[in-house]
């Protein structure tokens, strides 16, 4: 817990967004504090022109990943970076994606160059998974253009093996695909992680319409055009051949049966509890897609039938980020999705049998329409055993920054506290300065970077330094962090479903690659246990194996190996 002086200093280091009364008021039990600067996360993400954008590509921003790349039990951070159309950079000065190693003391060290992951380009999303099952998490980064598959060499360095592995997305003829959200998943349950990549727009700056073409206007401001009116991209599914290479099975799998869409966020989860991972894609300005796994190598888009394609009144929405959790603890994974300003975010409650009910308004999420949401996550920020929601916001168009429009370009976050009865309460104003600080947020990732048992948030902001929102929790609730290691299943344990029971209270979640807005959360699963001192764990592995581990003591980080139970335990901050 920071000192009061440190607390005020950290707030003063950021743009002043709150009154002295707010500063001096007694803090609530859980506060999010931006500690990015102290942590050493001071490099700006460069993404498009700062004041006016010609093309939509300049607006989408980048993802961010929490990843323990060196297997030391502490979350490191990977920031995707972008570039600018007209910029020229001196050698060594071009913006690059960055990898920060966790020093375990609240600070990070930039190891980008040492790790060999410095790449310049229009970086978009990031997802993590041990695709070659060598025990080291690999990183896939999407771009407008060819993507990077950073194979973790296990010695602190990475090698881009995208071409070698066959996961390039080059359509030829000098064209580029606009790849966005991604996720590793074992869709055929063969023990090897496959790869799904969403695509956004068929974009070529030489022919794309300029703002004055429409003209494309937003509240009277001339802005970048699209997506409506532009040709949508086609999502991609790569099957892992098990030999460090992949095969494009987009057509064979039925993924291409969904017409050109504007895909952004990717969320993998077993929505119908049949043991096979399904894929939900948040599409911008059109119906979202829910690819149901048919268990035979193919998928069917059932979003409309399932009730997760549209808003409650049947309208396509500008979907960006998505997250899944069992927010009502009924054993079924539900979905939250962020949308555009002037709209609400969406909360879809899973009813089973691949049907959902839009509970946005009933749950209390209908009251906020002025923010434009990007990254989102379910997180139990107060460790009471109920999944809360945090939304990272920021307007699309920097042009609104020049005006008094709506919530402005830089926007604060929204934190919804789960009341345990299907409803949420907006707890934003009491959740600390990190929530209230206004930024042009895009990708955000959730994870416990300081291993103190509560969930922190890292945010990749457009043309700005990032945020690292450390959760300072003074409540006495207990918690558990669970890391999974597959043996027959993929090594990362991605797709493993963990049920954490404390008495009658059952929490369900899955180890997941991708999610949020084109970002990657901590692969470890966090469970808030309330006052319970122990919990019973059940792990359903992608292989079909089930491990039961009863009586796990609270307030520790456990590693469960498939078929072998708990292999290691660590106390908090250890």
């Amino acid at each position, binding site marked *: 817990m920071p000192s009061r002086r440190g607390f005020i200093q950290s707030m003063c280091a950021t743009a002043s967004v709150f009154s002295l009364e707010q500063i001096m008021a007694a803090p609530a039990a859980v506060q999010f504090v931006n500690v990015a600067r102290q942590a050493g996360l001071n490099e700006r993400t460069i993404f498009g022109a700062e004041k006016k954008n010609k093309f939509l590509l300049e607006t989408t921003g980048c993802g961010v990943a929490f990843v323990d790349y060196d297997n030391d039990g502490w979350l490191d951070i990977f920031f995707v970076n972008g570039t600018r159309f007209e910029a020229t950079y001196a050698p060594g000065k071009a913006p690059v994606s960055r990898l920060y190693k966790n020093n375990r003391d609240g600070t990070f060290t930039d190891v980008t160059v040492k790790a060999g992951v410095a790449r310049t380009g229009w970086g978009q999303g990031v997802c993590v998974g041990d695709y070659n099952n060598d025990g080291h998490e690999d990183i896939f980064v999407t771009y407008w253009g060819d993507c990077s598959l950073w194979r973790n060499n296990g010695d602190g360095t990475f090698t881009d093996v995208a071409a070698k592995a066959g996961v390039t997305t080059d359509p030829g003829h000098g064209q580029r695909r606009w790849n966005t959200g991604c996720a590793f998943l074992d869709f055929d349950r063969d023990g090897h992680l496959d790869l799904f990549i969403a695509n956004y727009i068929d974009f070529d700056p030489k022919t794309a319409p300029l703002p004055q073409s429409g003209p494309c206007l937003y509240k009277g401001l001339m802005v970048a055009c699209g997506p409506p009116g532009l040709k949508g991209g086609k999502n991609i599914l790569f099957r892992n051949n098990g030999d460090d290479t992949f095969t494009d099975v987009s057509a064979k799998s039925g993924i291409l049966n969904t017409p050109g869409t504007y895909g952004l966020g990717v969320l993998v989860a077993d929505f119908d509890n049949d043991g096979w991972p399904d894929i939900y894609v948040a599409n911008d300005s059109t119906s979202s897609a829910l690819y149901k796994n048919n268990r035979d190598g193919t998928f069917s888009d059932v979003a409309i039938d399932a009730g997760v394609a549209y808003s409650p009144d049947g*309208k396509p929405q500008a979907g960006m980020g998505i997250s899944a959790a069992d927010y009502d603890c009924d054993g079924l994974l539900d979905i939250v999705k962020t949308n555009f300003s002037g709209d609400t975010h969406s909360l879809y409650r899973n009813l089973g049998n691949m049907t959902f009910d839009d509970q946005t308004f009933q749950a209390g999420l209908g009251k906020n329409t*002025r923010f434009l949401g990007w990254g989102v996550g379910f997180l139990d920020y107060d460790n009471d055993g109920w999944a809360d929601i945090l939304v990272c916001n920021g307007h699309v168009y920097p042009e609104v920054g020049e005006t008094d429009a709506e919530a402005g370009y830089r926007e604060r976050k929204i934190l919804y506290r789960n009341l345990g009865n299907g409803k949420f309460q907006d707890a934003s104003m009491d959740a600390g300065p990190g929530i209230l600080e206004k930024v042009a947020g895009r990708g955000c990732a959730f994870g416990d970077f300081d291993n103190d048992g509560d969930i922190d948030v890292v945010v990749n902001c457009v043309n700005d330094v990032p945020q690292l929102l450390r959760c300072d929790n003074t409540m006495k609730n207990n918690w558990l962090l669970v890391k999974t290691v597959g043996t027959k299943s993929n090594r990362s344990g991605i797709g493993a479903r963990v049920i954490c029971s404390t008495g009658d209270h059952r929490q369900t979640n899955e180890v997941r690659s991708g999610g949020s807005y084109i970002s990657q959360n901590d692969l470890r699963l966090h469970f808030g246990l309330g006052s319970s001192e122990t919990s019973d764990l059940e792990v359903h592995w992608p292989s079909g194996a089930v491990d039961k581990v009863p009586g796990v003591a609270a307030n520790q980080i456990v590693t469960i190996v498939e078929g072998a139970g708990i292999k290691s335990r660590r106390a908090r901050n250890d």
Partner: protein
Amino acid sequence: MRIYCFVFCIAALCFGQDQAELQQLTDQGRTMMAAGDASGALVAFQKALAISPNSAELHDQVGFLLAVLKRNAEAEDEFSKAIALDDRLGVAHYHSGVAYCLDKDYARCIPELQKAARLDPKSFTYRYHLGNAFSAAGRHSEAAEELKAATALQPRNAEVWNALGLAYQNANNVTSAVDAYRHASQLNPGNLEARNNYGLMLVQTREADKAIAEFRRVLETDPGNVNAAMNIGTAYMSKGDLDHAAAQFRAVLARDPNQALAHYNLGLALKNKDDLVNARSEFESAIALDRGLTEAHYALGISYWQAGDFDRTIEQMNQAVAMRPDYGEAWFILGTALKQKGALNDAVSALREAVRLRPEDPGPYNTLGQALRVTGDIEGSKAAFAQGAKVKAAKEAEQAGMLKRK
């Protein structure tokens, strides 16, 4: 022979006397008209007509005076006689047309005015009144054509530019309306109605700042001009500047708390700021002042909908559609809220109405599809979704066409 000469001489003498009297009466009539004595003028011209009953001009003149005296039926009769005597007497067609227009008989008015305009296309008066007649009859594109011609004939006539602006506005030709109103305002800065209309068109063309400047000019001349004050708020709303919009509407209400529309607009500004509680209060105030303000019922219903109170949503939407049965958006939300409440049959009915009224919007089709699916009508559901997809595809094609790089 002598008798014939005698008769001829007497006839010539009488004719000469008649002409002199005719002239005298005509002059007298004109003098009286100039003095505003329509009744006296009518008597004079009627006497003149008795002397020269086959004069189309005199019948027209008499008809005109009868119309001035609101003896429209007699006037129309005289005009008919004038036209029967001389179908090429443009002024008679004009007067006849105007008389019919005064009776709001546009079916007869317009053809007469059209004849007048064809006979004398360079007559500003004929073109102007024909344009106004088209406007009154709701034929706005034709109105714009005639009024445009009138502006060419009298380019410095502010009134006709204003009328042209209104015609374009009603014809949804916003760009041309802006131009016409701009002319009207520049030619007659004192025409506050034209300036207000100009500003509203600028709001529509997303030039909110220019619009605000125009509205402020109105207020400089007429500080109590409620329309201009409200329009400033509307302009701020259009550019998403909700704080200034709210302040503006509050200023209107400070002067006159009984402005229902100001309460409604303030409610909208607050709702868009997510201040639903205070927004509702304003909508309720608007309704209390004007129960027939259907938009306020709709907006109040939406604010309840956002809060998950479907019962109250349904109540408000029902009120809105009861007052305005063709309120497509209200039927849509009514149907959606009924669906969310589980009242599926009622939902389907309401959504079908929404589809009928708003066939260009994919939303109602999709929601109808969802509702039908839950009722078990899978084929109906598929059909609704399919139709929604078609409508969506058509919209996207239209958007793609607009975005072709210029």
